[in-house]
């Protein structure tokens, strides 16, 4: 009897067995939330217990509501479990953004914390001002943040804290946000604004069904890209160096998308991604736009810098076959942050 029919009849165990199997696959793809427990031989069981405790009611409602055959039910379960694992990991991410932001605010004289005993105690405002707590639409602050040209810096490691952006850029964004607020702003509100200002950089995309391993590629912070670096060093212009810094913050999957864009253009790239990822057009388009936005955020540009990176990738691709002959001299920077001036937040 199909598992869904069992569940519709109130029989739980066969369905739980599928959940257990799906959890086993997903927790290996998305280990972030259980990073410290990866060696646990009972990891799948532990995670299944956590998942059921957290999401049983919602999952059963979704599965029984949507219906379909067992294969489509299992696909839905993969999506549900993957997003649950990402949500758990995002709780950590938000915490990381908060810590980096607070460290930045504490370390710069431009900003002041409202002292205890005053209205809005614990909030942040521009130093030297005495304005009351801000109460307005978050959209206004997000819009103000977007008026500042700022280069994001991407997560480069599971163990280091993300710097979010170049320190000078981050200060500039925060100054404009606080000036627009004309009042003190809470840490939570500031985190929300910053996350929306750098959405592609600070997002953890889920992968469409079928792309089991590709999306798990981590940012290549410790692996030099010989062809890229070698090529960049042959061309010592500032533009090329900037481009290489951006390229090195992209995952293999991001680079692949950019190469597709450079090679065949948007429309064909979307079609190609649909095939590769086994997803629909809207999802493929979203995937492509996220990478474009990511490049814009990392370059700190609003338009033309994306083309610089595309050109750079084209050159890298053309030189790809010489990568085996490249003598990188052993002095390559081992991570992105080394190449960036004035970047903070590298503590564990």
């Amino acid at each position, binding site marked *: 009897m199909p598992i869904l*029919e069992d569940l519709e*009849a*109130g029989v739980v165990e066969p369905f739980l067995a599928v959940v257990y199997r799906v959890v086993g696959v997903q927790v290996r793809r998305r280990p972030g939330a259980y990073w410290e427990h990866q060696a646990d031989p009972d990891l799948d069981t532990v995670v299944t217990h956590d998942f059921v405790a957290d999401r049983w009611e919602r999952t059963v*409602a979704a599965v029984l509501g949507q219906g*379909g*055959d067992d294969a489509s039910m299992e696909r839905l379960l993969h999506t*549900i479990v993957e997003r649950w694992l990402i949500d758990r990991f995002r709780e950590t991410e938000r915490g990381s953004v908060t810590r980096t932001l607070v460290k930045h605010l504490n370390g710069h004289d431009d900003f002041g914390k409202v002292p205890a005993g005053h209205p809005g105690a614990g909030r942040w405002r521009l130093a030297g001002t005495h304005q009351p707590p801000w109460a307005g639409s978050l959209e206004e602050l997000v819009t103000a943040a977007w008026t500042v040209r700022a280069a994001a810096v991407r997560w480069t490691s599971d163990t280091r804290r993300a710097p979010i952006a170049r320190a000078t850029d981050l200060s500039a964004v925060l100054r404009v946000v606080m000036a627009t607020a004309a009042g003190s702003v809470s840490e939570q509100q500031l985190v929300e604004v910053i996350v929306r200002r750098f959405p592609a950089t600070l997002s953890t995309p889920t992968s469409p069904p079928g792309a089991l391993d590709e999306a798990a590629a981590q940012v290549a912070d410790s692996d030099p890209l010989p062809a890229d670096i070698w090529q960049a060093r042959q061309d010592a212009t500032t533009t090329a160096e900037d481009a290489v810094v951006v390229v090195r913050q992209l995952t293999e999957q991001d680079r692949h998308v950019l190469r597709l864009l450079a090679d065949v253009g948007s429309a064909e790239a979307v079609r190609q991604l649909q095939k590769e990822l086994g997803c629909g057009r809207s999802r493929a388009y979203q995937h492509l736009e*996220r990478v474009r936005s990511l490049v814009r955020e990392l370059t700190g540009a609003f338009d033309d810098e994306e083309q610089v990176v595309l050109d750079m990738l084209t050159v890298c691709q053309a030189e790809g076959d010489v990568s085996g002959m490249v003598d990188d001299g052993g002095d390559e920077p081992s991570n992105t942050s080394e190449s960036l001036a004035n970047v903070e937040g590298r503590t564990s």
Partner: protein
Amino acid sequence: MTDLPQSLRLLASSLNVPSVLTTDGLRQRFSDPDGLDPAAGQVRRAQWEDKSLLVLLLGAAQERYWRVAPVSIDPTGEDENSLVLAAQRSAFSVEVTVWAGLQACLPTAVLSRVVDVWETDVTTWCASPGATVPAAARRGQFAMPYGPDAEVRADLQDMLETLAEAPLVPVRQTTTFDVAAAATRVGLNVLVEALGLAIPAVVKIVKGKAAVTEDQAAILARLFGVAVGDVLAAVNGLPAELAVELERPRWRSVWQTWAAQLRRAEDAVRFQVGARVFALGYRQTGTTGTPNWDSRIAHWLADHDVKDMSGGT
């Protein structure tokens, strides 16, 4: 017995499925959840091949289509054009999102089981979102670009697009192309030779009492000097009223069950039954009169089973 660790087997024995969502629960509420005709306010599964989605019916659109808004439970997601219903407003007992900004027209043929019915205030708001949000509901929040909500939305859009393209029952279009006249012009013997069929079989095709395969349609199209689509529409099409009846959700469980047993597409099985019901009706009423297709399908199904379908079209 499933391959589960003991602790999970124990866990399974302590878990429940909300009774209102079980088959028995649905039968208690709707008597026959697979047999109800579509109506605004119903929350139904929309399914075609391996795509399945939950939708809220907003109203009938053009003939053979319904205007719907997709509903998500998990992953939930929301955007500024959606309505998020509190747990007490639906049978799902958890918060659910109706994506009013993603309204689409879906063929009636993709609608299947009813799983809930929502009150008019929800349907009205979703059909035309206004400032006043229904009780125990809230307007969704802005979806971050590239965030999880935007991903849910993109997946729903893709799903709707696929479901909207599900094949309809082909409807006979006598005005576009007259097969009998074309056959007379070409000559019956030529058709018999080209199709490699006996004369009675070819006569049935010409008179519209037997369907053709796509290969046969291509041969006829070449002989008649018309497009393949014109031949298929003229020969294989069924009366519009029968097509509407075949696409009603009440028959879907039969089409789906037989399609699975025969390892054939649902629309092929649906059409094959329709063609046989039509042929029966043709014999009984000739070309005049308006048959009651509902009862004719029911009678045909009562007299036949899946084994009668194994011969193909």
